[in-house]
């Protein structure tokens, strides 16, 4: 029996792309799908050839109308990653002074709990946890009923 395996389905769903000043469609697309692309590249599930094929399927072209190319796309990707790092870094608390710059009179405060507002990984970065999902909905349901936890 010679089973014909189906051709792979499209890798990424079409999304409405957000324009970025001075950047083209390929940048917007890579940024819109950043999380999935990073995961697929890391797992070896996607290569730049397949990603460019996907971009073509989504009707993307470069700023001069050229087709996405496996050689050029990684450079745009690096730019996307760099920009996203900057966005994340901007949200982080400012760096502390190096020890050499700290006053001699400085004494540590009593141990305090870590600030709750410091940006850690978002919920979407964590692996999916079915029980936590139920807990999340329970919290939402209680909040919608005006109940405290």
């Amino acid at each position, binding site marked *: 029996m*010679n089973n*014909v395996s189906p051709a792979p389905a*499209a890798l990424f769903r*079409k999304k*409405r792309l957000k324009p970025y000043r001075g950047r083209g469609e390929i940048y917007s697309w890579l940024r819109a799908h950043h999380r999935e692309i990073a995961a697929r590249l890391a797992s070896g599930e996607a290569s730049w050839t397949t990603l460019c094929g996907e971009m073509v399927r989504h009707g993307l072209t470069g700023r001069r109308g050229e087709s996405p190319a496996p050689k050029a796309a990684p450079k745009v990707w690096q730019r996307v990653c760099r920009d996203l790092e900057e966005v994340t870094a901007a949200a982080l608390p400012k760096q502390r002074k190096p020890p050499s710059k700290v006053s001699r009179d400085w004494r540590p405060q009593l141990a305090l709990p870590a600030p709750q507002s410091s940006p850690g990984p978002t919920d979407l970065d964590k692996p999916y946890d*079915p029980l936590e*999902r139920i807990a999340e909905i*329970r919290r939402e*349901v209680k909040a919608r009923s005006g109940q405290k936890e």
Partner: protein
Amino acid sequence: MDGSIVPEDSVADGERAKVDLLIRAGRGRTGGSTGLDLAVQRARYQGRRVKPLDGDLRSRTLSSLYPAKDDEGRPIPDGASSPATDELPDIKAWLSAEFDSMVEERVSRVLDLSGGDRVMQEYVRDLALMNFCRDFGIDPTVAVFLGPDMEDFRHAIQLLRSSEFRCDRTMIVLNEGVIRHGQTTSGAFEPILGHPDFEAIVRDGARPVFLRRLTCMATLRERGLGFYDVLAGKPDKAGAKASPTLFHMTKTWIETFEREHEKARVDQWLP
């Protein structure tokens, strides 16, 4: 020797688009048709084609929202399709024809068979629907809608435990929009959320999603405004745009819907 189960011409096209089949399961009166309507509007707003399949001949919600023909009898692209009668053979023939078109056209479908789980179970068994979808590159999702009724919940559990409805992508939608007047959200859903069977099916892979109530939904329907029409600033039948409060409520509701689906990691399951 070509003994392939899948016809070659149906799978050879590597350029084909992603096709989703969203099947609403569970009992009626749980807001499933509205959920499917939202999925259709969302997909179209985002530029994807979806065709509604309305097997709920009693309420005909999708058929009235997405008529197949205009006032002059001209066909409307991607209008809803429905079976000739609610007799089992007619429904099965209609499903077969629609699934054939779905494979050929590569256009996603949403399927509403309100209370028609028995039909679907039989059909799923006859066709081996999940295998059919896999072979033809279609991604099926079963969405079970729940209101506050524990009978509906028990029915859903039975359904999800049956072998016919086993689907890798199963959502359980807890729909706040259908809870009874005077009942709190917690009073409605806590018995379900705390039920060991609920935890078991969620552990087994079903993804729970909480769908908030949109208090102005009836107003939007009366005015003939879609959820995404409001976002896009489209006028209603009388030519009036949604007021700022209506716009804000709808926008907040859609944003919450998106966040909730992302948290449940099911946003990619929608057509």
